[in-house]
């Protein structure tokens, strides 16, 4: 269960941290005016300052806001049900490649999470990497990652 206040807080903290990082990093590049014109860090520095001030403002405005629940427990469950397998899928790409990973990802979500019928799930799980292969590798000559496993088996 997540309140609007918490979400506002997290977002403002996120943008604020980004702003601060931008400020610090652009000071290294040099800010201000030199013989070569405006220094490389000046423009990012200004944007960083604007982000930081804006985030502080949003933080101050977000805090007194209602504690309404904007993400209910069941919302959160559905969100994680999509996001966690997706992250696992992305993490698996360098190991087993996009093709195998996408097949497993489809099969896993359909069968384990949603109790979809096994034969149909298998069909979809097989069709997905095949379609990717045909469209990207064959039609448009874009090579997708084959992963460490691909190196081992020579694909």
């Amino acid at each position: 269960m997540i309140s609007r206040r918490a979400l506002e807080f997290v977002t403002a903290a996120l943008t604020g941290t980004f702003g601060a990082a931008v400020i610090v990093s652009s000071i290294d590049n040099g800010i201000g005016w030199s013989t070569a014109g405006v220094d490389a860090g000046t423009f990012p520095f200004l944007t960083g300052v604007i982000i930081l001030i804006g985030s502080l403002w949003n933080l101050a405005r977000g805090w007194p806001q209602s504690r309404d629940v904007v993400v209910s427990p069941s919302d959160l469950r559905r969100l994680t049900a999509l996001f966690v397998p997706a992250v696992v899928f992305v993490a698996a790409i360098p190991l087993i490649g996009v093709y195998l990973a996408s097949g497993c990802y489809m099969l896993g979500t359909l069968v384990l999470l949603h109790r979809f019928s096994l034969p149909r799930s298998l069909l979809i799980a097989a069709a997905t990497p095949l379609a990717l292969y045909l469209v990207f590798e064959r039609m448009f000559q874009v090579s997708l990652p084959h992963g460490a496993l691909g190196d081992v088996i020579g694909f």
Partner: protein
Amino acid sequence: MDNIESLLHGFTIAVTLPHIGLMLIGVLLGILVGVLPGLGAPNGVSLLLPLTFGMQPVSAIILLSSMYWGALFGGSVTSILFNIPGEPSSVATTFDGYPMARDGRATTALATAFGSAAFGALVGVVLITFLASWVAQVALAFGPPEYFAVYFLAFASFVGMGGAPPIKTVVSLAAGFAIAAIGIDTVSGSVRLTMGIDELVKGVSFVVAVMGLFGIGELLLAVEEEFHAKAVSSKIEWREVFRTLVGLPRYGWALLRSAAIGCWMGITPGGPTAASFMSYGIAKRFSARKASFGRGEAEGIIAPETADHAAGTSALLPMLSLGIPGSATAAVMMGGLMIWGLNPGPMLFIEQKDFVWGLIASMYVGNIVAVVLVLLTVPIFAALMRIPFFITAPLIFIICTVGAYAVSNSYLDVLLMLGFGIVGYLFKKLSYPLAPLVLAIVIGDKAEDAFRQAMLMSKGSLAIFFSNALVATLVVAGIALLLLPLVLQVMHVRTIKPVLD
């Protein structure tokens, strides 16, 4: 009259068999991404972008812009039949479109929407035909200070008129500029904001940002809302379509007003979403049948649809003639232009006549193709919506992942996309606007260059932004727009206070 001649020449480029074929493909793909929640015009166009690198620029832009038209139409289909807006800009269409369809008048609702959408698009294209080359001519005289002032005005109008909380818009914009600055600085050659990650030297591609912000972000929102597609009948009765279209001129005033709002919001980058809401609000306020709004009032469909398409189309005007895109999708297309080696802006009208007029001519034809195709395919796409979302959601995720990877064969881009996805979800949830963020990523470098060149001209004095009437007017207008939300708030407090006392 030069314009008419150029346009006719444009038609000879646009109306060829391969280009009509590209339009058909583009529109169909567009309707598809428009219909599917989680995939929209900006990331649809981004997905297609890497596949256009081998094409002629004019063919590529015809494909991409047709996809844009298709997506705009597709978004309305789901709004009306399922009460699920496929695109953010078609949210306002659900207010009256779905009630009308539920009452058994689905065909009337769809035909009203498509008819007024086509009208809005037509007004937008006519505007581009007659105004774009003129604007470009004026812009030829622009120097760096004027350019920076125009960028400033464009960004200020997001803050003043975008409809989102102003400070959130400012944060979104500034974050976009900072992201644009990541990588090698083109002026000094120094490496900026890579935070110790060497691979970031190449910068962050706007395609990756769009894929995450719009694709993953929207997917997370759609899952959270867990909609059930309860469709009304999607059968099209052609006689009813004809009768509705013939009856549309009765709403002439509403059509013209909505088109005007749309064009205005498209050119000053307020975007189609803000345009459709604004147009709906104004139509409701001034309508004689105010009470029937929200229950299937035809004017409640006409107003947002006309404005949506007028804005979507006219967003290409500043993109072509000034190099400033008027919407997120236009920003993606402009990114494409730069990748194909074209330089968006006034020189385009001199150096790339075939490209510009081919595109403008294709907009006339593309919109007709889109209306016909969308009417023919409504039942097919409606059936697609009945596929359970737990099947389409991971598929969309895979497509976005592969799309982000394909930009430059980089795994880091996939990780960045995930990060942008979380940001997109948070931003959408808390009404931070996303379009300014994308725009700033695409044109941030140009805006910065203009600023630095202007500073070089003036040896570091800001007075150069008030050095002549044109640049001063632009800057003052920009500042006024920035202050607009503040003024409105003060006035609001003043009018409410006496009531409270």
